[in-house]
């Protein structure tokens, strides 16, 4: 989100708080989020795609919602109304193709023709809904949903497949397929949307997902403040927040002051600190230009702090705007670079993602391994679950070798920390307060530098250059 977009969201929040009747708030959240989905989607090089991808998001969300309905639950009148409203908004957004709108009202660039889109989306939705109805609440149906989402995720995050898909999209719209690139399929927020959907499918499977109508399910998955950069809320939190909206005191000075404070802090972190650090932070170009170890460390530190201020700044803005709309999003950061070890770091960096990994990869995998006969050793279970979790978290950012290495780096780090704490617990307990404080300082410095070195894989798409940067950081070789 850029500055004007944040300004528009603030203005919308002001109108929402001041003028909207309280009973309409949940519906407004859904309507606003649907509009926000199209509005925030950047223009793409492939014709019509900046309309088609958000529309496809709505279809996928509707299908997943149908799948997560309990077998004995019925689609209510309110659900049909919400579905109709969503379809109506998507249809309305086709209008710019036929009538000239003032630039301020152009939410999408030139959308596809209605005569193609409406039958296609309607057909896809009806077929999907019928299928989802048959599979609703069943283990197979829910698992199929998870696999389809994971497959789609792979298609969008694995560059060769994404390019092939982009080529197909280009051929369909009569554009040159030879120019296809992954950038063509820049599906806004899909990583977060997919993880939220998988969370609901899995929680339905384990029976802990609360009943959510389509309106609240949709506004949970595509809630505008959290669409671009999270956090990944849990459906039960969002459901509870939306259920309480009609009675919520949104015109509460404490809420408004806190929200505006969070937004102000977030704006400063993102647009002043992070954007300034971005000028000289580690990247493929700066890494190749850095002159010596000192320069490379400067770039790496700048990257580490830029990433934190950028991402946590966005989170502050999202939480602040969410608060104004009456939805308190989860915290995502808690001074991560001041943590004494890697385990605590991961409880304070992108917490909503690491929690997701813990709930849906680490815990189920650990349980599955524990049930195996013969039962593997504890360390084998811990290592396997940690590695799987962090490799998925790494690949969530993009299916590339550097992200895989980044995930493996943290998995190894966490496992090493586990071994270390198990072996030094007695020694640690015997330390005096002063030595313990000194050890905390050492631990914080070590943790920060381990994390910062891991960012080398994150920042550089080329493994060879990553290795050269490592060498340069320690004064080996002739630079990156």
């Amino acid at each position, binding site marked *: 989100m850029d500055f004007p977009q944040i300004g528009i969201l603030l203005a919308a929040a002001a109108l929402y708080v001041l003028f909207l009747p309280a009973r309409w708030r949940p519906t407004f959240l859904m309507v606003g989020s649907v509009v926000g989905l199209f509005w925030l989607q950047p223009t793409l090089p492939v014709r019509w795609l900046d309309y088609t991808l958000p529309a496809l998001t709505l279809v996928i969300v509707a299908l997943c919602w149908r799948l997560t309905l309990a077998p004995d639950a019925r689609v209510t009148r309110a659900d049909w109304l919400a579905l109709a409203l969503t379809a109506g908004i998507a249809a309305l957004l086709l209008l710019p193709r036929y009538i000239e709108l003032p630039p301020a009202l152009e939410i999408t660039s030139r959308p596809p023709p209605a005569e193609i889109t409406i039958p296609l989306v309607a057909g896809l939705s009806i077929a999907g809904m019928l299928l989802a109805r048959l599979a609703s609440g069943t283990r197979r149906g829910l698992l199929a949903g998870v696999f389809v989402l994971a497959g789609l995720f792979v298609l969008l995050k694995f560059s060769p497949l994404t390019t092939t898909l982009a080529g197909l999209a280009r051929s369909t719209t009569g554009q040159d397929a030879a120019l296809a690139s992954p950038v063509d399929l820049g599906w806004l927020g899909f990583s977060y949307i997919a993880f939220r959907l998988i969370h609901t499918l899995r929680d339905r499977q384990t029976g802990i997902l609360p009943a959510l109508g389509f309106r609240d399910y949709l506004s949970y998955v595509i809630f505008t403040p959290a669409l671009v950069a999270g956090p990944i809320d849990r459906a039960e939190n969002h459901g509870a927040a939306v259920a309480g909206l009609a009675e919520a005191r949104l015109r*509460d*000075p*404490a*809420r*408004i*002051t*806190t929200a505006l*404070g*969070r937004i102000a*802090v977030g704006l400063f972190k993102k647009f002043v600190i992070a954007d*300034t*650090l971005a*000028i*000289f932070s580690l990247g493929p*170009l*700066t890494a190749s*230009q*850095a*002159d*010596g170890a*000192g*320069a490379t460390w*400067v*770039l790496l530190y*700048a990257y580490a702090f830029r990433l934190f201020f950028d991402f946590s700044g966005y989170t502050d803005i999202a*939480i602040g705007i969410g*608060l104004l709309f009456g939805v*308190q999003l989860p*915290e995502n950061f*808690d*001074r991560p670079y001041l943590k004494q070890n890697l385990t605590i770091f991961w409880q304070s960096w992108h917490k909503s993602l690491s929690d997701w990994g813990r709930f849906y990869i680490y815990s189920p995998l650990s349980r599955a391994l524990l049930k195996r006969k013969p039962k593997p050793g504890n360390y084998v279970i811990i290592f396997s679950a940690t590695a799987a979790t962090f490799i998925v978290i790494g690949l969530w950012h993009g299916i590339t070798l550097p992200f895989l290495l980044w995930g493996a780096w943290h998995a190894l780090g966490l496992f090493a920390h586990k071994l270390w704490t198990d072996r030094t617990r007695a020694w640690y307990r015997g330390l005096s307060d002063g030595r313990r404080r000194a050890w905390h300082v050492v631990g914080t410095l070590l943790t920060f530098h381990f994390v910062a070195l891991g960012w080398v894989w994150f920042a550089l798409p080329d493994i060879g250059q990553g290795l050269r940067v490592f060498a340069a950081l320690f004064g080996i070789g002739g630079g990156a």
Partner: protein
Amino acid sequence: MSAMPGWKWLTDGGYTWGFLARVLGKALALFVLLNLAFVLADPVPALGRVSLYNGLLAGRERLPYGEDPAAYNLSLFDLNAMFASHTLAGPRPDARRVIVLGDSSVWGVLLENRDTLPACLTEQLPGTRFYNVGYPTMSALKDLLLLEAALAYQPDAIMWLVTLESLPRERQLDAPIVANNPARVRPLIERFGLGFDPLDPRFVETDFIGRTLIGQRRALADWLRLQAYGVAWTHTGIDQVYGEYTPRSNDFDEDATWQGLNPDATLNDDILALDVLRAGASLTGQARVPLLLVNEPIFIADGQNSDVRYNFWYPRWSYDQYRALLGDAAAAEGWPYADLWDAVAPAEFTDSPVHLTPAGSRALCEAVVPFVAAIQEEADAGS
């Protein structure tokens, strides 16, 4: 609203509407006061002198210029900030200090710092440090502006490279750095009676709002960016992106006009801003700093219609007249003058009639050395 871990300072305020109104009221009052104070104090020039360069960061070898973030460089209009980032503002070396003024050929478009004229001269003349104060716009008035600022650093001599393209009177105020520094340029116009209108509409006037904190946000952001780019500059030594370029043309249309003038025109003080050169000489004279004026080398074409034009910029008639005028003015005023218009072989020009290759820059350097040595001897004799 549930607790926000780590945000106790924000959430534990016991906020009321009265508190919020007071905060907003105070914020508004502070905002207004701060903007008013900003107008009254005009802190941007003073802030410009505050710099991480030459201390925490390495000073720049040439003035900041450029818009490509990949070059870790930017164009800004605050001369204080520009000079504060330059090595000229750094520790004074145990050597004579000579400032080299001029256009993009001196600044060194497409040249690395080590290949520029000032770098070559520093290498060729031990005991003298040459500072690159060239700036890539064609305007002698821009050079005068920079000269005045540079004299504050008490150089031992000035070398000023000019060419015809930087002298058309009508275009002197087109340079953005000139147009955006009316407070510095107007006093020069008045002091030396220069032939420009101090109220020329090209001067960028700053109204009341423009002088507030909000109005000056671009200048403040530029200052901040200049410091931030300094980190990258210090650690990479990069201040320019060297990409592919289109070579200067060798063939031309049969067009003999120059700046809308036909070959029968006579160049004079109304057309060329020679008064700016006189003002520069006067400034340096008052500061008792020797000045060497150099007519910089140009590309001399041998292609189609090269009998009409020397190059893309200059028809022969206009350039010949300019050379004669400049030579006469130098002789009449007693300026040390080096006419090096043909000192560099045509093959050593890059994308414009004045931009040089490293070899071209070295050739110019070797040609100019005797003239520099002469003015240094003169200065030494004088002192």
